[in-house]
């Protein structure tokens, strides 16, 4: 045996088999789960991440996906977990920590079962049944208030508050929840988060953050141009306003006298002048370009009394086109067919020290801008991430309006149903199903632990409460007791919870199925350091 496997792989490649492989992947996955565990819940702690890159920049965060993204991980099983948290972030935007913690707990339970000599496939079978049962139980108790706009808004507000309460914004969660809900409701179900712009400006306090109905562009108005335009007609363009190059391949200028240079220069100038005239011919009083505007055309615009904004980046013009209803133009020969954007008022405003351009009264009421203020750039970054989470969750909830209670309620509820299933199931699978319930109950336990409460006592009480039908009991971390989460207004989106449940089960299953880990020899790299 030794002879055969000794030189089967390249040097430095390793293989781990059977129990050892399983141990390695369990340990890796559980370690990752334990790492993010303490950030769970409203009293979860933050992590400081220091990058190894230049400047050793520091990030302070509570967001599971952000933490995991920044880690350099060697353990392959741990990578699976990092991956699911990333997907959770992309797909629903929140619950990134929960999904990793749940998967970790599922594996922790599986480890115990394997120690009892239960085959991993049996465990997987049990987990699958349990996951389906848990999902069904949750779905049954989800409520849908879409028909009633007032209640629906209340639901959204509650969800936003629940999401934000674990983040840095918890202090002003009502304020920010309102901001987020207003912003998402303005989208009118289109679910296009691009229309919501978040601008970060250091200075002031988080409370000074506000929602602006309209659009704010972080750019300057050209010199000598009007600072305030009413009833603006806007042309959004993506065109070169420096020297307009000739694009025909191989063209170059070759002259034999200084005089000719002068002529060509004049021709170039006249070309630009014509272009500007054409643009002015659209009957506009505001011109926004993605590329630079040189001094000469800028002067021409100023002469015509047109407000010209240069170098608005891609996102900027796309959003501007979206909100003002104009189209992004690159040729200007047919002024009649180009749709112009409109807004009631363009003016320069001051936020903190900076001047920004504010478009208000835009055609399309969907867009809005959230201006975040905060003491330092770290606070602002974290605030943006938190707000992003909240916005994503709200957007998902607008799409699928079912909501469930929060604060450990869903986990205990699901655990109860899964427990019942275990009692009815014959065979070894029932052990796995029972373990699934235990893993689910670990989540409220962690929330309680992170809040410095007596978790064992609380979860036991919670279980007792849930033995009754239609209980609404959950953990009230503020009072440190079992409370009625419905009254406390702790809600979560059904879609997020469901995604957490299914992804975590899938990831646990994938790691469980592995019985052999083969690591190829790492690619040789030249040492540049």
């Amino acid at each position, binding site marked *: *045996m030794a*002879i*055969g496997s000794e030189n*089967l*792989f*390249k040097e430095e*490649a390793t293989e781990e088999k059977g129990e050892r492989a399983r141990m390695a992947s369990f340990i890796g996955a559980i370690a990752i789960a334990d790492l993010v565990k303490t950030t769970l819940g409203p009293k979860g702690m933050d992590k400081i991440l220091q990058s190894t890159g230049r400047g050793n920049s520091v990030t302070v965060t509570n967001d599971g996906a952000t933490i995991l993204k920044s880690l350099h991980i060697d353990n*392959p099983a741990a*990578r*699976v977990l990092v*991956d*699911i948290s*990333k*997907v959770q*972030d*992309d*797909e*629903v*935007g929140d619950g990134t920590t929960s999904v990793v913690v749940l998967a970790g707990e599922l594996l922790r339970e599986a480890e115990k079962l394997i120690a009892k000599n239960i*085959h*991993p496939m*049996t465990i997987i079978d049990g987990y699958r049944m349990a996951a389906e049962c848990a999902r069904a139980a949750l779905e049954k108790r989800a409520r849908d208030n879409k028909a009633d706009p007032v209640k629906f808004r209340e639901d959204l507000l509650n969800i936003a508050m629940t999401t934000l309460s674990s983040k840095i914004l918890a202090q002003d969660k009502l304020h920010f929840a309102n901001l987020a809900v207003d912003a998402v409701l303005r989208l009118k179900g289109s679910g296009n988060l*691009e229309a919501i712009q978040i601008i970060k400006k250091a200075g002031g306090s988080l409370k000074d953050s506000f929602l602006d109905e309209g659009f704010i562009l972080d750019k300057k108005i050209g010199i000598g141009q009007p600072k305030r335009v009413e009833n603006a007609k806007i042309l959004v363009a*993506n*065109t070169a306003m420096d020297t307009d190059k*000739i*694009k*025909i*391949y191989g*063209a*170059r*200028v*070759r002259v*034999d006298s200084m005089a*000719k240079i002068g*002529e*060509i220069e004049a*021709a*170039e100038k006249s070309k630009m002048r014509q272009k500007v005239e054409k643009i002015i011919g659209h009957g506009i009083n505001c011109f926004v370009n993605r590329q630079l505007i040189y001094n000469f055309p800028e002067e021409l615009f100023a002469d015509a009394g047109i407000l010209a904004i240069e170098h608005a980046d891609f996102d900027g013009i796309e959003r501007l*086109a979206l909100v003002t209803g104009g*189209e992004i*133009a*690159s*040729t200007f020969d*047919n002024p009649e*067919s180009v749709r112009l954007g409109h807004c009631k008022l363009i003016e320069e405003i001051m936020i903190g020290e900076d001047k920004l351009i504010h478009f208000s009264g835009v055609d399309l009421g969907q867009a809005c801008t959230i201006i975040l203020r905060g003491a330092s750039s770290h606070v602002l970054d974290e605030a943006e991430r938190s707000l992003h989470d909240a916005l994503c969750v709200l*957007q*998902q909830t607008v799409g699928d309006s079912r909501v469930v209670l929060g604060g450990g309620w869903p986990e205990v509820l699901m655990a109860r149903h899964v427990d019942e299933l275990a009692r009815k199931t014959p065979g070894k699978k029932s052990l796995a199903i029972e373990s699934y319930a235990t893993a689910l109950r670990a989540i409220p336990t962690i929330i309680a632990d992170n809040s410095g409460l007596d978790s064992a006592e609380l979860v036991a009480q919670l279980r007792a409460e849930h033995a009754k039908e239609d209980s609404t009991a959950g953990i009230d971390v503020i009072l440190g007791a079992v409370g009625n989460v419905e009254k406390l207004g702790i809600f979560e989106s059904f879609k997020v919870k469901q995604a957490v449940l299914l992804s975590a089960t*899938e990831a646990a299953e*994938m790691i469980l*199925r*592995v*019985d052999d*880990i*083969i*690591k*190829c*020899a*790492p*690619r040789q790299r030249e040492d540049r350091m």
Partner: protein
Amino acid sequence: MALAFDEFGRPFIIIREQEQKARVRGIEAQKANIMAAKAVARILRTSLGPKGMDKMLQSPDGDVTISNDGATILEQMDVDNQIGKLMVELSRSQDYEIGDGTTGVVVTAGALLEQAELLLDRGIHPIRIAEGYEMASKIAVEHLSNIATKFEFSSTNIEPLVQTCMTTLSSKIVSRCKRKLAEIAVKAVLAVADLERRDVNLDLIKVEGKVGGKLEDTELIEGIIVDKDMSHPQMPKRIENAKIAILTCPFEPPKPKTKHKVDIDTVEKFESLREQERKYFDEMVQLCKDAGATLVICQWGFDDEANHLLMNRGLPAVRWVGGVELELIAIATGGRIVPRFQELTPDKLGNAGLVREKSFGTTKDRMLYIEQCSNSRAVTIFIRGGNKMIIEETKRSIHDALCVARNLIRNNAIVYGGGSAEISMSLVVDAAADKIPGVEQYAMRAFAEALDAVPMALAENSGLQPIDTLTAVKAQQVKEKNPHLGIDCNNVGTNDMKEQNVFETLIGKQQQILLATQVVKMILKIDDVITPSSY
């Protein structure tokens, strides 16, 4: 050893720099080779069957793959040993030819070599073993066609096909929704199949994956998905009854291939060149418009100005579409790929009932669906799943299922799975061995023994007592003369694979036996291994 002496008694060297080469000869070489091959087979052994386990593979760059597919595992394993590489090749050729049974073939080859080792210890010459194996494999393959049953299906009755694909999928991680995936695979294959010629071109089935959502959201799209979006953010996101112009020329000023310079030395030239340039764009867009296109799909990029002109004339466009996709779109919509604007005519346009852009999740991921095409013979399977690894594994599983369905359309003979065919073959070969005089008899018996390895591994992976189960089933097969009895991996309660609906294709199985025997013969014939020692 590699020294010879000339007539004057001076030594000379046959293999140069022999001190730098490692060399193994004779029985030693055979033993070492068998060891290596067995090591590979042992890795795959636990992946066999519906309860088989997965392997986690970390590539040199640190990416992780989790798979149950024999060919994939071996491919990613980065084997260094020469014989190990042979086994990898073996699995790959099964994958290319049949597309399924890649694990089984390696396990069978491993078992054959294991048996051969015992015979070598008894002093039987490797060539005799190889010959015996050859004879045995012939008998086995013949027997397979005897016990094979034709199985009928038609484009309306797809149930039998679905059942077969389900057998293939049941060993993969996607077994949770095998029914759904099997149906998708069968429908996809039937959509592109040419039932008269009994041929299926799998290239017409595109398998596309996107992270997110559930595995259950996987769908079959009768059309093409392109992972691109409209070139201009304000172009319409939904086009009905689209007429599609498929272009392989960029919306840019032409770049003649001959080297040239255009010199500008007067203002007039400057002006005229400018005019020319403006006209180019205008003309390009106008030509598309004139041909009656309502959607332009282009392999290359657009100039900003061209982009705006397209938008301005109400002509939605997609840029940077890959060559393969372009071909598929052309096939699906019945259009022609046009390399020059001038050649664009109305009859070269493709037709699609609906083209729409769909966005996913919270990030700005968008994809373009081209559906209800005039020629529905190109389809896309769109896979959703919790993470990248699941998607990749699902892609591989779907590929296996597609191959199985294709093989059935090519040849609708099947044998029953669950190790039943192997047990039946083993019995027949064992019986035939007694009639053969000579040393080959031993080799044939060894072959029969080796065939038991697959059902044995199946039983072991399912947590059953391997020897007990196998002997019981074998005895039952002999008693009832029923070749459909196999290992009950899923604890259904019956051994009859006909009742459990576990099939495999006849060609797949035959190929497995033939390929495994071939490789084993090749390995047995090697008696000298020379490797340059590492420096």
